[in-house]
């Protein structure tokens, strides 16, 4: 069951990545190899196994509801490519 070029294109779109035809073909082959490797797991009967979401599953961590400011607006905006001094500015997006 090979990964199709269409599937790779779709995944690339979702991740906002653009590839050339040649790259897409290479990716399809590489992804197929990875899936082939993982497919090994299908040999095991997992119908009684609860899906594992975390390695350490027996502790939860919560924090107290306390306000602890860490940075100022100026500091935050200093990392932005573009601002008006108050807002972050990005190319126009309208959905």
């Amino acid at each position, binding site marked *: 069951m090979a990964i199709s070029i269409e599937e790779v294109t*779709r995944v690339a779109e*979702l991740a*906002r990545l653009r590839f050339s035809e040649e790259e897409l073909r290479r990716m399809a082959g590489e992804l197929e190899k990875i899936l082939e490797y993982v497919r090994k797991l299908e040999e095991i009967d997992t119908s009684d196994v609860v899906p594992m*979401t*975390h390695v*350490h*599953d027996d*502790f*939860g*961590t*919560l*924090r*107290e*509801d*306390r*306000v*602890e*400011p*860490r*940075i100022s*607006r100026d500091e*935050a*905006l200093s*990392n932005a490519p*573009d601002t*008006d001094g*108050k*807002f*972050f*500015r*990005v*190319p*126009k*997006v*309208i*959905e």
Partner: protein
Amino acid sequence: MKDQFEAVIGLEVHCQLLTESKAFSGDKASFQSEPNQYIDPLSLGHPGTLPVYNEHAVKLTLKMGLATHSTINERSIFARKHYFYPDLPKGYQISQYEQPICTGGYIEITEGGDPANTRRIRLIRIHVEEDAGRSIHDAESESSLLDYNRSGVPLIEIVTEPDLRTPQEAQITMRTIRQLVRYLDICDGNMQEGSLRCDANISIRPTGSSELRQKTEIKNLNSFRFLERALTYEINRQVSLLQKRQPVAAETRLWDEEAGETRSMRSKEEAHDYRYFPDPDLPPLLVSESLLRTVKTQMTSLPAERVAKYTSDWGLSIHDSEVLTAERDVADYFEDCVSHLIVDGKYPVEQIAKSVANFLMTHVLRTLKGEDARNEEFVVDSARFSQLIELRLGDRISSTAAVSIFEQMLISADAPVTIAEDRALFQIRDTAKISHVVDEVLMQHSDRVATYRAGKVGLIGFFMGQVMAKYPGSPDPKIVRALLEQKLGSNT
């Protein structure tokens, strides 16, 4: 023709939780301020930051779960929901997907205040997630501006089963949810500012059928009126498509209030593939028994319970009970007053409740400032207000005097007794003294006495007025009337 079809409606209601700090970081959860004041590297999606969930947000969620009879899952997990949009700097929203914190449960809605019309609306789930930032598109022509104060504010999403059949029912459900979250201090319920908002899923089917047909989703409805109007529009649109034998497209639609219509926002072909997966940065959300116990002790009695108590134990009408329970602060105030007055056992509880309720609804509610009573200060505290009602219950002041004493209480801190004394507002019950004044009045108006005795009994009002005006202070009108009737009836 419209009876041929029925609507199948489900709601997804988002509530911003009333926490001090954000869901996963210590920046303030307040966005009613200058843009980008409350931004943490985590809210901005900087690499290397790690989220830790807010315990108070868990408590608030558990309150809602308990109030809606949901199953509280001891262990639930956070998931990443991926999409790209500038209001979401990380590229994913932390939410819950496969294992939410609450599952099942129901909300009871009552149509038209009649308990016989109570219906259970089942819930699918309640899950926790974080809000996104705010985008401003119309300030500049070439750019959008981003404010991340709201980014990371904790939310719960309440998802109902498609149990609703009319826009009216959907609106009542939304109102009921709003009342619950405000009672429990979970959310301020401000729909205009988006603290409480909902998406509605709707499809149409032949009445009586149990199939589920193609639905559409209407996004971001932030008022009861918009919800009802959007659903009404959407029902008509889908029915007319069905009658023309055209398919209903699977799509997300937006309500345009100005045009009075829903408009397609995106079709499912272009729909996002969110690629949910468990968030490796966050351990499972564990609800310990002790946490759940603490939350249970913090639950308040809910509107439906209170209405039941007011009507069956205290003898109030359903209407009055609903007015009194609409806002929790009013209901608490009312109950405080009743318990102050119950203590000495002098008056039956029904009489107390009726007296407090009437005065509260007629004279006190209008003195509350602002347009809603949440966290509203009552000018007169419940203890002092109860003293006023006690004077009324003991018939020591007239109802008119009670109102003027109350007006005075609004501007002074004096006890009602003091005010009544200062202004000579106590009803005078000294029959001998009143009798004397009555005699004087009758003597002065002997001609009218004759007219009265000739059969014009309506003149009693005139005599009453004369006595009341002449007497220093306020004689008890019941005594005045009794004396007048007695004296006018006899020929002495």
